[in-house]
């Protein structure tokens, strides 16, 4: 009998390598605990996000909306969303359990988003500033007016049909 090592002899033909794990090595109890913990975490983060969303709504309805406060709340929601994405990818999609080489081929290309987001948001913002500067009609016809007196504030903003 040949001493040649055939790594695929004990497994099905659809799998090329013996080290590919078809079965999880964690036991049932640990797994259930991890899933329960992640589910609760995702739900709690979502509820916090909703609370912040409603807070932004209340600030907008108020007499003197603070732009800085709204911006800070929006930033907080973005960070919470990234936390949610991390838990979904790392626990639900088991990327955290893969080997480092594999994780890096997925995560490193996604770093392109850092440039992508900053560049295109900045581009949109710069376009707005240039238009406001050189196209006064655009500015006058689209800039939110400050003419809303207190009695004009809608009780149920836009809720009519």
């Amino acid at each position: 009998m040949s001493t040649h090592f055939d790594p695929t002899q004990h497994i099905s033909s659809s799998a090329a390598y013996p080290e590919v794990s078809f079965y999880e090595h964690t036991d049932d109890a640990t797994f259930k605990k991890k899933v329960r913990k992640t589910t609760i975490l995702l739900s709690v983060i979502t509820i916090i996000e909703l609370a912040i969303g409603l807070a932004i709504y209340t600030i907008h309805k108020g007499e003197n909306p603070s732009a800085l406060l709204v911006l800070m709340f929006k930033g907080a929601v973005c960070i919470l969303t990234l936390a949610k994405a991390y838990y979904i990818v790392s626990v639900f999609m088991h990327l955290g359990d893969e080997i480092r080489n594999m994780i890096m081929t997925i995560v490193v290309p996604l770093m392109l988003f850092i440039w992508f987001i900053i560049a295109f948001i900045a581009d949109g913002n710069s376009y707005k500033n240039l238009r406001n500067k050189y196209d006064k009609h655009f500015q006058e016809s689209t800039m939110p007016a400050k003419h809303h007196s207190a009695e004009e504030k809608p009780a149920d903003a836009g809720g009519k049909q």
Partner: protein
Amino acid sequence: MATTANVHQTKWWSGGKSPFNMEYGKLMMWYFLMSDAFTFGAFLISYGSIRFSQNFWPDPNVVFNAFPGAGHANLPLAFVSVMTFILIISSVTMVLAVHAGHKGDKQAVVKWLAWTIVGGLAFLSCQAWEWHHLITGEHATLIDGQIKMVGQTTAVNPWGDLASASAVADALKNTSHETLVQLISSHDHSFSHEQLAGMSQEKLMSMVNAADLHIRENGPVAFGGYFYGITGFHGFHVFSGVVINIVMLIMTQKDIFQKRGHYLMIEKAGLYWHFVDLVWVFVFLCFYLI
């Protein structure tokens, strides 16, 4: 078996084994999902770019404030939070289906896959209701110097800035009889629609108080295109995910995975389903929260 021992001692990249310790199909699913992430990312960034180029953008809490069966009640974020939780829960049932597959437990795979499909269909139903509500809604909007009753489409956006009382008073003169009837009957229930329809234009205009109407101008038109385009593309992913899960359910029922010796296909379908949930997290952020 000295050679066997040697093979196992080789380095990750010297051949003879998968350097990623992963089955081919699953690895390709990951790379597909990465490219899909760039597709969705490009859409959302394009939306962000247009939004930053505008002086005014509709407040999502004003646009998305309806709930099925709640009539005209103002419930910002309520319905979309239901949709978000449906997707989170269906993601959890998918995790349980994949785990059952690891253990080769066919009955549990069938059970959790079925619940995941139910969750996906529930989400799609919610989205269908939301789209229908937005498109067929009738919002009094100041367009081209007259008031029109419009819904949210890709051509018109009823959620612009609040129009000034003087502009509304001017616009009322150019507004059609039918729109005036609709406008009054929507908040004044002391007359029937027929009674109002029988009144003269002057009589109707005297009944309207421009300051009470809170009529909005035509908002940024790009809002509709981006909203329907991106939530539609996500909805299409949910739909194809449901179809894939149904195929997986049938294959499980026919013992195909049992005979194959492993449930790796369930794992790949699971990756796709979690990705759909992941994208929704960002769609939820960009359209509903900020």
